[in-house]
């Protein structure tokens, strides 16, 4: 595939350049490109110029593929096994290095504040970039998992609108859960 350049225009009228192969990581962009409706610049009224470079960075890294490191790790190795029954260890090792490198990249890439996480989730959803959506949503979920309701509220700046009585009742229930989950 040639490296045709595509131009994306953010909501605040700034234009960014991206390779066509990279742009194909987005289902939405892919459909526009394949649909032949490409008219110079693709306007993205739901993505601001703060967040678009971040999205492009992800697309560049992932080019054609569509998954996160986990998917590649699983899918990649399985595929090798299917196609080459006697696949060589060298190939396997290289694959592992690639996955490790990608994981490291993801770690660095995902180091941002909550506002960016939020905007990135919306952008990934809007542009149908499955890998990026999985990555960001998993990060949001990790901020909930294993936390107490108070910690979750703090993490997401959630204000409780429960009455003191309701709160009290919930504390009781939570204690019950703790008892139950202690056995899990």
């Amino acid at each position, binding site marked *: 595939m040639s490296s045709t350049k595509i131009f994306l225009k953010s909501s605040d009228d700034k234009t960014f350049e991206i390779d066509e192969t990279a742009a194909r990581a987005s289902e939405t962009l892919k459909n526009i490109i394949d649909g032949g409706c490409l008219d110079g610049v693709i306007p993205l009224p739901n993505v601001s110029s703060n967040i678009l470079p971040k999205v492009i960075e992800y697309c560049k890294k992932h080019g054609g593929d569509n998954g996160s490191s986990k998917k590649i790790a699983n899918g990649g190795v399985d595929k090798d096994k299917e196609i080459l029954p006697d696949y060589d260890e060298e190939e396997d090792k290289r694959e592992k290095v690639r996955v490790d490198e990608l994981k490291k990249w993801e770690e660095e890439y995902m180091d941002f504040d909550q506002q960016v996480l939020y905007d990135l989730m919306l952008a990934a959803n809007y542009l149908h970039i499955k890998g990026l959506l999985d990555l960001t949503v998993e990060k949001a979920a990790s901020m909930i998992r294993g936390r107490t309701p108070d910690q979750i509220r703090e993490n997401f700046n959630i204000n409780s609108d429960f009455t003191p009585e309701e709160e009290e009742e919930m504390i009781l229930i*939570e204690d019950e859960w703790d008892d139950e989950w202690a056995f899990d």
Partner: protein
Amino acid sequence: MENIALLLNGSSYVSLYIAAAITAFCCLCALWAVRLSPLNGIWRRKLKESNGGCFTEGSSKKKACCCSCSCCGSGEASNSTSPSAPYPNGTAGDMLERAPVVAERAEGVERQSEASMMEQLVPEITTHALSYLDYPSLCRLSMTNSSMRRAANDDNAWKALYHKDFTMEQDSITPHNGWKAYYAATRAVVNVNAEFYNIIRERSLPAMSRLWLNADYVKCIHGSGESFTGYDAVMESWQLAFNWAGVVFQIRDVRTRVFTDMAWVTMKAYVDIETGPFNVTNVYEFHNGQWYMVHHHSSVMFIGGEAENQNLFG
């Protein structure tokens, strides 16, 4: 009224006076009624406003604990009906209303700093995020505030969780009271079923007698092939069994199907003695807020090896 008075009028003056008095009284009554009724209405409404707040709050409190209660695994498939049913619609409506705000925000308009990120997400992303959560996390999220509670009660999230935690089977069923209630009921039954094996391990006849429904139709078919009918006979059989050493079963492939007040569980029970492993079917009935065993059937599992000789009828 006056016509009646006139008719009465014919007889005598006395009756005329009486009639007049009655008419006047009736008019007064009517006036009273007319003047009072709207007043009454307003008054009542005012009362409702001041008091009603508490009432609604009270009922929403019930809802609050519903999630929790049903999660606690007390297994009230029917109890958790009403609160969980309205949620899916409620969530969708609420979230849609919020959608435009999200769009504005994405354009860089800084507003709504008091509302949190999680509350402003579009529903499809929220659902996606919830699918990454386990059962305790979903419950805890639902305890943060009311909009999170609506989100965390999402039917699809609970369906996904059910398939993750219990079985990929039962994909095409539509639980009457939603997946959350079904999840809670299933969890309750699974817990009771696990308790059955704890009791066997600990050889506790009192606990076993509390687990079974005291009815003449309960049946117990032990792995030995012996079968017993009726509560007393079944208990005697357990007493005999408990005279031996406690047996530690490992149960696998537990599959539970739950209806409002009946559930059956199938599983494989492994044990490291010369007998077994077993295919087991347990049936439970729901009475007075509790699941009781009404049927236990254990039979020695056919183990492969001579698979080519396998014949359904022996």
